[in-house]
């Protein structure tokens, strides 16, 4: 009787928990399967916007170069001595990439159309178009989307390149990574002191009165508001506020940080309060009984012991900031940027994903790669915070 019941219960537990665990792992697997191939150091360090060069040749070139050994997808331009290859860039678009430039190739001495300076291309550059005009003034052009083969053969027609666009890099998330860090920093600078101080008030000073219960309830309510609402609030309050105060136009990291601060305050207050609650009452009594003032007690005894808890709050906050998209889409915007300023728009990694996914050509691979980066960041933070708080947790004796 008991045995069958136990057995049944156990079967249920194993079934459900393995179900849950499988689901959770399948998400991880999904992310890694799709994202791992796109994950590279380059993705993290490069700009989102490629550096674009508009170029032309110095004059008519007639050189014939000898073809190196080519692999599949590679094509050689005899006239210009470059090997072109069909490849994909970081964002997953098909591009034509230069994989070889012969010595003396004219591509090593092209002229920048605007500055008239000499530019030399390098392997790894992408060529997005080449425009030539023939003798009768018609345009002959080869485009990246036409493929390397087409471009190479077009180049080998005997015309002068009048307009050529080559680019380097692009598709990276450096900007978003930095702006994520900025946002985290700014948000914490705003919300952490306020949250911690409020928690101290609630836990250390607040009388046990209805009024305080109401205040607590109100703070709890904030925790229940979905982030999309905060997004709206950010859009109608903080964006104008920042525009008027720090000269931003439209959403900015600052307005995002203010919005995130609102979102995080309840979490920080709650977590800090939990940490404060764990501190034995004995410490407070002991300190006061030693003639310390309340302020001294808080400074010297309460706060140092709440640090692990506050760190947890920080961790939770960072996790939340990193994962948040709905609120930031409205409170900051979705424009990916490479140079990050606090009073300008930019995207966090999550919004970066959102941006990638909402375009005409959604890019799951890069999105998942960014997710992996997010996971790694969160994981590292987790580990660091746990290590630090273990180190700082004075109430635990090593």
């Amino acid at each position, binding site marked *: 009787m008991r045995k069958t019941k136990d057995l049944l219960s156990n079967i249920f537990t194993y079934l459900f928990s393995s179900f849950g665990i499988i689901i959770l792992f399948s998400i991880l697997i999904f992310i890694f399967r799709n994202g791992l191939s796109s994950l590279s150091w380059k993705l993290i360090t490069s700009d989102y916007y490629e550096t674009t060069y508009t170029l032309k040749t110095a004059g008519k070139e007639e050189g014939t170069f000898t073809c190196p050994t080519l692999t599949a997808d590679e094509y050689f331009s005899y006239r210009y001595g470059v090997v072109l290859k069909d490849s994909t860039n970081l964002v997953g678009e098909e591009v034509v990439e230069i994989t070889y430039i012969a010595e003396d190739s004219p591509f090593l001495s092209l002229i920048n159309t605007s500055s008239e300076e000499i530019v030399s291309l390098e392997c790894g550059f992408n060529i*997005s178009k080449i425009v030539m005009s023939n003798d009768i003034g018609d345009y002959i052009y080869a485009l990246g989307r036409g493929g390397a083969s087409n471009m190479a053969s077009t180049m080998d027609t005997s015309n002068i390149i009048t307009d050529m666009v080559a680019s380097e890099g692009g598709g990276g998330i450096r900007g978003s990574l930095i702006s994520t860090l900025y946002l985290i920093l700014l948000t914490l600078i705003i919300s952490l002191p306020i949250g911690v101080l409020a928690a101290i008030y609630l836990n250390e000073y607040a009388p046990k009165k209805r009024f305080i219960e109401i205040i607590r309830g109100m703070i709890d309510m904030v925790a229940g508001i979905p982030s999309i609402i905060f997004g709206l609030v950010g859009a109608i309050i903080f964006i104008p506020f920042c525009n008027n105060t720090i000269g931003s136009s439209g959403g900015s990291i600052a307005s995002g940080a203010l919005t995130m601060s609102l979102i995080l305050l309840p979490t920080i207050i709650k977590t800090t309060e939990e940490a404060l609650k764990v501190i034995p009452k004995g410490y407070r009594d002991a300190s006061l009984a030693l003639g310390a003032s309340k302020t001294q007690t808080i400074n010297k005894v309460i706060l140092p012991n709440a640090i692990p808890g506050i760190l947890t709050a920080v961790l939770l906050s960072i996790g939340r900031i990193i994962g948040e998209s709905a609120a930031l889409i409205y409170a900051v915007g979705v424009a990916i940027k490479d140079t990050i300023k606090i009073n300008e728009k930019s995207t966090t990694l999550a919004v970066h994903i959102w941006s990638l996914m909402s375009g005409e050509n959604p890019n799951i691979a890069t999105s998942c790669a960014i997710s992996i980066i997010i996971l790694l960041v969160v994981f590292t933070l987790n580990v660091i915070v746990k290590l630090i708080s273990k180190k700082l947790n004075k109430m635990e004796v090593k």
Partner: protein
Amino acid sequence: TNNTTGANITVYTRDTTSGTRDGFFTKIGFSEAKEDNSYLVEGYVEVDGNGSMIAAIKNDEYGIGYISLSTLSSSGLKGLTYEGIEPTEANVLNGTYGLTRNFNYCVRSEFTDNKVEAIVDAFEAFLTTSDAKTTMIEKGGIVSVTSLDPTWDSIKANYPICNEDNSSVTIKFGGSTSVESMAKALSAEFSAKCGNFVAEHNHKGSGDAYKSTQGSEKDGANYLDIAFLSREFNESETPAQGTYGKMCIDAIVVVVNNSNSLDSITAEQIKSIYDGTITKWSEISN
């Protein structure tokens, strides 16, 4: 492997702010549904982007929808012949393929900054050059480049601003998301040709184009200097003379799942499908 017989048709549509949707319903003669879902067949699915559309129909062998021609080749979907005409660039250019729309642009009519104004002027001119047009083509636009088109080299003298260093000037681009990648390519190229001004792109949809340059939001937080539309201006959008223009054409393709045996469709059929007159695949014969 056509096993669609007898199955219901799932209708996919873009949301009402989409320029693609606008062009599609206008061209198939179902303008009522342009902005009003209530005309659509019961059980339609509204998706929020081209990518979602592709993903949805890829996953639904009974689905039908519409996407931009430029994304067809990479989408893995089957593009249907429309009124007997193959959806190709050539057919669009020669005017036989009817399901098309224009990519338009619109710039501010009033500027506070002279430099910005000068650069925007130059950009408008740049859009008429072969330089720009080849770039549009590279990004999927359909436009013919003829010897009549000037090169930027040939006209840049008219725009002395481009000889200056503009790296401290920010130009705000925005509007249609369909045009976004094209716009980015154009701005990147033009920036290189015009003193390296900073191009800031914030594309949220065609609806922004007029609104954020000359309309209600033109002085709002998200104002734009140059904006794009993937549709025509509607009655309420009345840009000032000389502040807007057509850039190129984009074709819309009716798409079905690759497993669907259907190859072609007529405007009439599409309308019937979208308004619910036809609900089963079996009712459409090739």
